[in-house]
C-alpha cells in the first residue's frame, strides 16, 4: 500500500516510505528493542562476560522494570520528535515501542510473580492492596492491557475517534510507572526524579502545543499589543499530518490522533 504523497524526495534503496518502514526501519527497531532482553539473558547465564550480580532475581526485576519505563518514555517521545524533526512517518514505529513497553512490563511482573514471591498468592494480594508502590505498578499493568488489545488495525478502525481517547491512558500509565519507580526507592530518588523530569518535559511539550492551552491563555494574550502565536511550529506540519493520516489510516496507525500518545 504505497502512497506517493508520503514518498521522500530522497529515495533510499529505491523503496517507498511504506516499504522502508516495513522492511528496514521496523525490523531494526524491533531488534533494538530486543537488546535489553538479550543482555539480561546473557547476564543471567554469565555469557560473554556479562553478569547479573549476586542477586539475580532483583537484577531481572529491576532491569525489566526500567526497560519498560524506558520504552514507555520512548513511546511518548515519538510525537515531539516527529513534529520537531518533521518526520511524520515516525508514528509508524510508535505501536511497536508501546507494545515493547507492555512486553517488558509483563516480564517485570512475571519475574516478580515467579521468582520474587514464588506464586505466593497471599503475598501477591497483600502487596497489591497494601503496598502503595505495588498498587501503582499493578494498576499501570492493568491499564496497559486494553491498550495492547486495541493496538491492532482492526480495533483502531472499529473504535474510530474513541481509540485516541482510550490511548490517552498512556499518559496515566507513564505517571504511574514513574511514581512506582520513585516509591520503591529506599532513599536515593535521583534516578526516578530524572524519569519524572523527562516525563514533565514530554507533557510540557504537549501542553504548549495544545490549542486548549492557548484558548485558556487567550485573554492574557489580548492584553499584549503584539500577540505571539505558536502557529509557526504547527502550521507547516499540518499538510504533512493530513497526508500521513490518510496514508496511515490504511496502514494501521491511529487515524484520529496524530497528537496522541
Amino acid at each position, binding site marked *: 500500500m504505497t502512497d506517493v504523497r508520503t514518498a521522500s524526495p530522497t529515495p533510499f534503496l529505491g523503496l517507498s516510505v511504506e516499504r522502508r518502514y516495513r522492511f528496514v526501519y521496523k525490523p531494526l527497531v524491533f531488534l533494538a528493542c530486543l537488546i535489553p532482553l538479550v543482555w539480561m539473558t546473557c547476564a543471567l547465564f554469565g555469557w560473554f562476560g556479562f553478569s547479573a*550480580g*549476586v*542477586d*539475580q*532475581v*532483583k537484577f531481572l526485576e529491576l532491569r525489566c522494570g526500567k526497560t519498560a519505563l524506558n520504552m514507555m518514555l520512548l513511546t511518548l517521545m515519538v510525537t515531539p520528535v516527529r513534529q520537531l524533526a518533521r518526520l511524520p512517518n515516525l508514528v509508524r514505529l510508535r505501536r511497536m515501542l508501546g507494545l515493547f513497553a507492555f512486553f517488558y512490563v509483563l516480564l517485570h511482573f512475571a519475574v516478580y510473580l*515467579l*521468582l*520474587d*514471591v*514464588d506464586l*505466593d498468592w497471599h*503475598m501477591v494480594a*497483600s*502487596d497489591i492492596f*497494601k*503496598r*502503595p*508502590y505495588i498498587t501503582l505498578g499493578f494498576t499501570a499493568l492493568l491499564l496497559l492491557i486494553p491498550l495492547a488489545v486495541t493496538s491492532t488495525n482492526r480495533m483502531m478502525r472499529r473504535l474510530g475517534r474513541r481509540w485516541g481517547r482510550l490511548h490517552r491512558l498512556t499518559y496515566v500509565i507513564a505517571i504511574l510507572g514513574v511514581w512506582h519507580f520513585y*516509591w*520503591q526507592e*529506599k*532513599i*536515593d530518588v535521583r534516578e526516578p526524579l530524572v524519569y519524572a523530569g523527562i516525563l514533565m518535559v514530554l507533557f510540557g511539550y504537549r501542553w504548549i502545543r495544545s490549542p486548549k492551552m492557548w484558548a485558556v491563555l487567550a485573554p492574557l494574550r489580548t492584553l499584549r499589543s503584539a500577540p505571539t502565536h505558536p502557529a509557526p511550529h504547527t502550521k507547516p506540519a499540518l499538510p504533512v499530518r493530513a497526508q500521513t493520516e490518510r496514508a496511515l489510516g490504511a496502514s494501521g496507525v491511529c487515524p484520529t490522533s496524530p497528537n496522541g500518545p
Partner: protein
Amino acid sequence: MTTRIPRIAPSEITPPETYFNRRAFLSAALAAGAGATLGRAAAAVVPAAAGAPLQYRYDAADSVGALVHAPDQDETPNTWEQITHYNNFYEFGIGKGDPARYAGQLQTRPWNLAVAGEAEVTGSFPLEKFLNPYALEERIYRFRCVEAWSMVIPWVGFPLAALLKQFKPTSRAKYVTFETLYRPSQMPGQRVPILKWPYLEGLRIDEAMNPLAFMVVGLYGRVLPNQNGAPLRLIVPWKYGFKSIKSIVRIAFTEQQPQTTWSVAAPNEYGFYANVNPNVPHPRWSQASERRIGASLFHERQATLMFNGYAKEVAYLYKGMNLHTYF
C-alpha cells in the same frame, strides 16, 4: 555460658587448613597491616607449634564463650564472593556493587578509635590495642537486611561487651553511639548528601552488652574486606542490617537515645530499634519473608523469624515493649 554445638561442620565452610591457623594469620595480617585478603600462604608462614596458642577451632576446649550460631542444617553460609559483592555501604555509592568497586581506596591503617561520653576510660586509641588475636572467635550469623534479603555469614571478631567493658561505662551510660569514618576523599558516596554523614548508629546499653552483639574484624577467617566495613564493624544479628554500622571510628556512651542516621532520614520507615520482626511490615513492603541471597533462581522465599531467629537470646530485652511502636 551459652556454648552451642555447631550444626554446620566447619569443614563445610572453609578448607580446614585455613581454619586451624586462623588466629595465626589474622594476627599476622593485622600486625603487618596487610591488605584485605590473606590466603593460606600467610597462614602457613606461622608454625602452629611456635608456642602461642594459635590453633582455633569451634570445638576446641579453649574457645569457651565462642557462640557459634549455625542457624539450620540447610543454611549454608554464603560464599565469599556473595558476601563481598552485594553490600549496602552508601559511603561508597548506593549500588550493591559500588562498595566492592570503590572501597579499595579506603586507607584503614592507621586507624584510631575514639571513645567518649559516660565512661571512665575515654580518649583516642589505636585500633591494634583492641585486636588481641587470642580473643578472636568466629560466629556464623544470619544477616537480615531491611530490604527483605538475607545471608548467612561467618564473621570473625570479639563480643562487643568485651570491648565496651574496657572503657568502664558509668551508670549514666544508657546508650552506646557508634560513628562511621567521614572521609569523602576516600568515600565517594559521602560527597552526595543522600544521608546525613557521618553515619550514626546506636544501641541501648543492655542490647550492646548482650553476648550476641559482636565486633567484627574478619570474614571467613580473613581480614575483613573494606566493602564489608573494615577495619572494625558492628554486627547485631537480631536487628536489620543497617544497625550493624561499618568502619567505626568513634564510640560514645550517652544518657540520651542517639539520633541514628536512618531513623533521622525516614523516621516513619526506620526506627531506633529496627529489630527483625516479621509482624511489623516496613511501610512500603512486607517483612514477613525474605529472599536468601545465592539461593537458586527458583528457590522459594523463606519465612522471616522473630528477632531473626535469635529470640531465645534477645527477646528478654524487649519484654513489655510494644514492638509496633518501637520498631
